[in-house]
Structure formats: C-alpha cells, structure tokens
C-alpha cells in the first residue's frame, strides 16, 4: 500500500508547517505555498507525512492511500 500527497490549493493559505515537518518532499515557493517534489510518499516517510497532514491548520494537505479502493 502506498500513500499519495495532494494540496488543496484553495484551502491552502501558506502557513508553511508542512514544509517544516516534511522537508524531504515539500518545499515552499517564493510566496510561501508548498511545492510537492513528488506525489507518492516513500514508505519511510509515511509517518511524517501523516503528521504534516494532521498539522495543517487549514487541512489543505491531503494524504490518500493509493492502490486498492482509493482513486
């Protein structure tokens, strides 16, 4: 089972916590909005990705399970 990250760009207001918690995958653009360097989350980073998604103040970082029922 693998996990995939997405940003809801409408909900995101650029708090930038995700880039602090998951710098391996997320960096910030000049305006402070997250850029995902890869959508799929390597196995070793899943816990960190879950933490980043949960920490987002606007719930804009979405972590979806892929393979199986999730699209």
């Amino acid at each position, binding site marked *: 089972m693998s996990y995939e990250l997405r940003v809801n*760009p*409408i909900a995101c207001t650029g708090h930038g916590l995700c880039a602090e918690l998951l710098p391996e995958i997320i960096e910030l*653009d000049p305006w402070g*909005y997250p850029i995902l360097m890869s959508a799929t989350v390597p196995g070793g980073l899943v816990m960190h990705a879950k933490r980043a998604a949960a920490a987002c103040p606007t719930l804009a970082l979405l972590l979806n399970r892929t393979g199986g029922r999730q699209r």
Partner: protein
Amino acid sequence: MTALELRSRRPPVLRLPRLLAGMSYHTVTSLREHERQHGPLPAWGSSGRQRPDRLIDLVERSGLTGRGGAGFPTGRKMRSVAAGAGKAVVVANGAEGEPASCKDRLLLTRLPHLVLDGITLAASAVRASAAYLCVHGRETGLLASLEHAVAEREAAGLDPVPIQLAGLPDRYVSSEQSAIVHYLNGGPGKPTFAPPRTHERGVNGRPTLVNNVETLAHLALIARHGDRWFRGVGLPSAPGSALVTVSGAVGRPGVYEIALGTTLGQLVMMAGGPVERPQALLVGGYFGAWLPAEVAWKVPMCQAGLKAAGGAMGAGLVIALPDSSCALAETARVVRYLAGESAGQCGPCAFGLPALADAVTDLAYIGGRGRAIDEIACLVPLIEGRGACRHPDGATQLVRSALWAFGADARWHDHRGPCAGVRRAPLLPVPGGADWLDDEDAL
C-alpha cells in the same frame, strides 16, 4: 464504373453552413423560422418512440467533441452523467469568457432555439430533471431575449424539463464548469477543488452535464440528421463543423463556420485575407498559443493538428497579429488582464500571475538588461499546474508560446529595450482595455 464508385467520386457539395444556415444577421430567429429551417424537434424523450440512451449512442458515433475549449468527447461525458447516481442536471454554458470570442454570443442572440433544442435533447438523453442556461449576468438584453425564446417554447410545450436562465458573475473564471456549478449551488461562482468532479457530484450534489452552447447546437442537428450526416464534413479524426471567431489584421473579421481540418491559412482567406503582413496568429484564445505566421498557415483547425503545432483549439479563436504590432506587448497586456481575473483563491495564481505579468510587461516595455527572459522562465514552473482550475496554466501557456514564437524578438527586448511596435495601439481586446492610455504603471 459502378454506382458505388460514382457516388464516392461525387464532388463535395456545399454543405456549410450548418449551424448558421438561414441565420439572420440582425435579428433573433423565432421558433417558427427555426422549425422551418431545421424541422421540428425530434422526440427522443420518454414520450417519444426512441429510447433516450440511443441518442447517447448516436452522439458517441458522431464523434462530436466539446466546443468550449477542452474538446472532450460529448458522448462519453453524457454517458458518464447518465450512469451517475440520482437525477441528472444539464447546464448549458453560454458565458463566453474569452474577450475576443463571440461565437457563443452569436448563437444565443441569433439562434437561441438551436441551443435550447440541444438542452432539451441532452436533458432527455441523461434523464435530467433540471436544466439551466447560463450567460453573464451583465448581459441583461441577452437574458431578456432568451427569456422570450424560452416562453415561445413553453407555449408550444417543447421542453418537458423547464429551462432556467441564470446570470453568472462577471468574471473570466466564472465560466469554468466547477465555478458555474458553485454559483448554481448558491456560492459566489468561483472554481472549486476536485474531486468531486461535476459529472459525479455537481448542482445539488447530482451528476451534472456541463456543455458549451455550441456543442448543444450541434447536438440539436445530430438528433435530426444522424451521425453519418455529422461526419459528412470535417476530418475522420475530427468530424463536423465548428464556429470560429477570426479577428485582428484581416479584411472581414467575424464568426465563421468551418469544417474541422480547414487550415488556418484558408480560414484567414475566408475572413478577407490579411490586411497587413501577419507575423503570427493567436489560436485558441487567451489560453491558447502564438503560432508564427509561416508555421501557422498550413496548420489544420482541429485539436490534434493545432496541438501538434504547439497550439490549441480552445474556443475557436484566431487573431492575426500584423508585423507592426509588438507581440510581447500584446502578450503582456493579456497576461496582466488574466492576472486581474484570478479568483484569488489559490496562492500560486493570486501571487504568481501578477509577478508573471510584471516580468512580461518589463520585458516588453522596458527591456530586461539580459535577465528578463530567465526570470520569466523561472516563474512559469512555479505557477503551472498549481491552481484548482486551469486559469494559471492558461496564462503560462500563452507566455511560453510567446517566448517560443517570438524568441528573437524577446532577446532583442531583453538586451536592447522595447521595439517600435509598442507604440502601436493595442490589438488584442481586453475588457476595460481603453485604459491602456491611462495605465497606472505608465504614469
């Protein structure tokens, strides 16, 4: 020679116009005139003899694709809406966002019954229980004439599902399909985050079919004449006809109905030919692309042909840019306009597009001391693909194509400053565009 061979060698007869056949250029076509021209609305509904999903089969076989910009196969879209859970909703999108396009407006102001026929047919095909026709709310005259047309049909009992008119907020992005659904659901009419997609969960959470009004007008004729008739013009890979708006430095700007596959050169000649040596054509619209004239001339008007040349069909817009214009200045003004039309919901669009507009404006009007092109090249990937809708991508695509088509020009501007073309009056129409004379930046 057999009869079959004879038939296949018969020279092509004049088969166009189809949609615009018998159209009056100064007044709206009444229901009676419409039925005299095209025949009565065929009964595909539950009361009719033919099953509604047969109409979807017919549309699929016809190869009709959306004429609003995305070019998605209409039949497939109808099928997925029909298969959705619950009663469907049909939405006709007549809110033409492109400032230079007027094909949808022409259809709605002159041939409303063709569009309304299409709405009713689509509604019966997907078994919808509600139908909307959306235009810009500021167009009160158009809304009044459409109301009259709907009333004419009500009196004749043509539309089993009543067609409701809706006036959308006056914004470029409000004609994006998720924005329309958002508005019909009581929101401010801004694009929304997907999923859910509108064909799964749209108006009132029901599967929603959003189609451009020209697509629906084609549907009205396909239901009457069949799929083989529809494929009788155009290319096997891109059948049928399409409405295109031609403007810029041509002799007779206007809306033309062409067979798909007509080359851009033929189209420009149809529109009276160039009035000044053209340096490039803007195809597709403000989300489209610049094609250098020498490349553009032989490119066929169809999704695949334009895509191969680096363009896009978009809403069927072609603007000829004369040699005396500065393509970069024109691009800068359009990007500035698009930046102002951002709904402001997504950071990369709200902050990225103004930054991009600044960079392109500097390149065009001031020059870049050799750094402007690199700056633009850095900004583009920071914007592209990072919005909820395609608005930011459209703007970056235009800039990308400008740097490609006018690469030598751009380098000249970057190193030596603006060319003589910036002194010419702007060509591409931008709403509120007269203020190029009292632009804040210029003062």
